[in-house]
């Protein structure tokens, strides 16, 4: 029971952040607040993936002790933190930036046409 609570504490933090983003996407009426909720959700997933690759007693994924060309260094897989989640999340961050930029451009176009950013007023004006 204690191991369930303390040994896996990083998952609870990321579930909490995810639920904050989830409620903001559904429950708020302003369009900008919904967009920020989507952004919070995305960042919680990125941080969750990075926390999976951690290892106890491992150092950052850069080979140390390199001094000149022909130095043969034997590196063991348990000395270094898993580099694969870091690589995949670099791509995910860049995709997030692109999505947020295009979404903000769409919001500016909506504001120019309907003069408001609240969801129920826009739905009333469309009808």
């Amino acid at each position, binding site marked *: 029971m204690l191991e369930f609570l303390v040994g896996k504490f*990083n998952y609870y933090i990321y579930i909490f952040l995810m639920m904050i983003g989830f409620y903001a996407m559904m429950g708020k009426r302003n369009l900008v607040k919904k967009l920020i909720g989507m952004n919070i959700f995305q960042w919680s997933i990125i941080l969750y993936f990075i926390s999976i690759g951690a290892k*106890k007693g491992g150092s950052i*994924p850069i080979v140390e002790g390199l001094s000149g060309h022909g130095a043969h260094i034997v590196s063991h897989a348990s000395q270094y933190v*898993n580099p694969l989640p870091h690589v995949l999340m670099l791509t995910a961050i860049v995709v997030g930036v692109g999505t947020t930029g295009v979404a903000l451009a*769409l919001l500016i*176009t909506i504001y120019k046409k309907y003069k408001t950013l609240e969801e129920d007023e826009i739905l009333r004006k469309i009808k």
Partner: protein
Amino acid sequence: MRIFYYILTCITGLLLIYGVSDMPKWGDPHSPASLHVSPRYIEKTLEETEVPNMVTAVLADYRGFDTFGETTVIFTAAVSCLLILRKRKKEKDV
């Protein structure tokens, strides 16, 4: 209506916490994420590419084709933002 959203959020949170019981512990060196491909990348980085940074070696050498697609994605985001928002010059009156 808001009460319904609160209850839905709490139910989703509880289901996810129930799903945590299958996950590996924090800092476990034998978790499935660190077992199949990743030890080969860590051990062979310095002899196959002469670059000490493992993250850049995986991003630009072992998986270089995916980074090419990634650069195209961010280029497409800039082009679509430009298409939505830029004013055309022909509409100005003379």
